[in-house]
């Protein structure tokens, strides 16, 4: 769920779409240009969603009980008396100066809300991808090394489950089992209530902040709360990473240099981890990058389930309150991070792999 189906199937190479544009201009300036154009596309889409689709965006802001006077004031304040292209230009200008409008539900500027909520999402997604790599890569390598064995089949099923299990469902079941029944982990939220607000935010990431303050108790409490949502997120990246690692490894293991190494009598462990694994590190970076970007998306569902005060939770709360500025702001930020991670892993691939240069 967390990972886009587009990258789930092997036929289009990871990031093929963006790589195609990037290849058009292979200079650094070209990279910035494509990045800029993609952002502009994202802005066009959010603008379209926010201003064009709603039959009356003013009504969406003032509510249907507003008087005609309030309505007119709001309309001019929102710049809706201007032609559409002028509105778009001023929208782009606002976004680039960091003005995403006010959130109706929190009463604060959206950009302020987002910067407050982002560290929680970042913390969870990062832990998730670490779990995904730490388990997914060895699983994929093992599956490829023992192709056709029952272990390979089991790993294949785990991989397919990654595309068929709803993330929010897995989160709920995890809560019921590991929190309510077994008491192994902390419940929803980032900390137990009596620890809440004791650590002053420095980075906004509780794991780091509590260590900076030397509050070991709070650190362990935070660990017990973050481990379950991060593991659920990690499962989805693990499924994808294992599947891709296996497919890359199979390619390598069928190469002649691997056969040569085996004939020479190189131990199997060395053949697998040095001869076969070393060349796939570069494409794996792209896969991990894509998967990381996917986790930011997947965290929307997970955060809702775990009452995790991150961007995803902010987005769903705003959705239910029809708080369009907040919805579009969060969409924009998640979309932008998604694009940037995609492009960076793409560029890294081209820098690290001499054949792609």
């Amino acid at each position: 769920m967390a990972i886009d189906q587009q990258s789930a199937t092997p036929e289009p190479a990871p990031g093929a779409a963006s790589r195609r544009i990037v290849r058009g201009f292979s200079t650094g300036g070209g990279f910035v240009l494509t990045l800029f154009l993609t952002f502009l596309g994202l802005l066009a889409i959010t603008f379209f969603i926010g201003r064009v689709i709603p039959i009356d965006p003013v009504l969406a802001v003032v509510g249907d009980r507003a008087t005609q006077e309030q309505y007119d004031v709001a309309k001019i304040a929102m710049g809706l008396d201007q032609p559409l292209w002028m509105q778009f230009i001023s929208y782009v200008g606002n976004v680039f100066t960091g003005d995403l409008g006010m959130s109706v539900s929190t009463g604060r500027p959206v950009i302020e809300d987002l910067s407050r909520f982002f560290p929680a999402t970042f913390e969870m997604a990062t832990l998730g991808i670490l779990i995904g790599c730490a388990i997914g890569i060895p699983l994929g390598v093992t599956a490829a090394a023992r192709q056709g064995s029952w272990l390979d089949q089991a790993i294949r099923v785990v991989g397919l489950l990654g595309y068929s299990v709803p993330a929010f469902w897995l989160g709920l079941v995890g809560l019921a089992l590991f929190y309510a029944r077994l008491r192994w982990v902390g419940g929803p939220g980032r900390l137990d209530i009596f620890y809440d607000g004791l650590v002053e935010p420095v980075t906004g990431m509780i794991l780091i902040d509590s260590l900076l303050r030397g509050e070991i108790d709070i650190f362990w409490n935070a660990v017990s709360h973050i481990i379950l949502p991060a593991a659920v997120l990690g499962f989805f990246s693990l499924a994808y990473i294992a599947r891709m690692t296996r497919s890359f490894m199979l390619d390598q293991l069928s190469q002649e240099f691997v056969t040569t190494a085996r004939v020479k009598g190189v131990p199997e462990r060395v053949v697998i981890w040095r001869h076969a694994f070393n060349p796939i590190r570069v494409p794996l970076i792209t896969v991990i990058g894509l998967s990381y970007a996917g986790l930011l998306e997947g965290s929307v569902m997970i955060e809702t389930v775990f009452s995790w005060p991150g961007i995803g939770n902010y987005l769903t709360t705003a959705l239910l309150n029809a708080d369009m500025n907040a919805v579009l702001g969060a969409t924009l930020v998640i979309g932008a991070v998604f694009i940037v991670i995609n492009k960076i892993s793409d560029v890294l691939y081209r820098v690290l792999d001499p054949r792609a240069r």
Partner: protein
Amino acid sequence: MSTRDWLLADSPTSRLQANVGRAYRVFTALMRNPLSVLGGAIILVLLLTAAFAPWIAPYSAVGQDLANRLMPPSAAHWMGTDELGRDIFSRVVWGSQITLTIVLLVALISAPLGLLIGAIAGYFGGWVDRILMGFTDIFLSLPKLILALAFVAALGPGINNAIIAIAITSWPAYARIARAETLTIRNAEYIQAVQLAGGGPIRLIVQHVLPLCTSSMIIRVTLDMAGVILTAAGLGFIGLGAQPPLPEWGAMISRGRTFILDQWWVATMPGFAIIIVSLGFCFLGDGLRDVLDPKSEGKN
């Protein structure tokens, strides 16, 4: 001559025989792969369940029975009952109709749309191609679920808008495939023959290009169905998709969220339905790819 010989004839005597024979070959190849048989069986069961829901479901999907609320799974209620005493098994059965509707409509909207855009871009090339594909690439580089959420937020909650939002976010992948296929057949001799015979671009694209894209399209659509089901369930879970009392699986999980700690079955049972159906589409899609697209065989 037996039916089987007629189906597998090397030199079919009619177009019908050729088509049916090809379908038969695909079918037998699929039957050799146990996982795709399983996938096909799951989809078949889904279709039958949706078609015969009124006869399969022991209770109504919306009938309340407050005396029997939150009962654990038992012989009378195979999957237990929810907070209004409704039989969860019956609701899951009725819900299959909703899931099937969503999946079919999304496929019917997004696949032809992507097909057309991709075929036009590939056939005409040049600026048309660059603009259409630039647009496609931008859509492809954005997160699907977030985009669908934002679209539903603007359109308003509801199952129809959820279908539209999912379709809007899933056409670009099809456009890419259709374009790639079109590029490989654009310069084929039979295309030139049709052009010489005076066939215009519309006739060429619709009658001679699009039919050749169908097999790769079928593979892709089947593989994507799991993602569509998950997105639809996600929208339902957040409360933006199907609205209560509709027995949509995602919305049912969302209702059961409140009781997850004590009455686990309310949220858990519909989840199994989602997983099984999604897995079915994955298995079938994988099998179809191996059969219809020999290039990628053995990769996964």
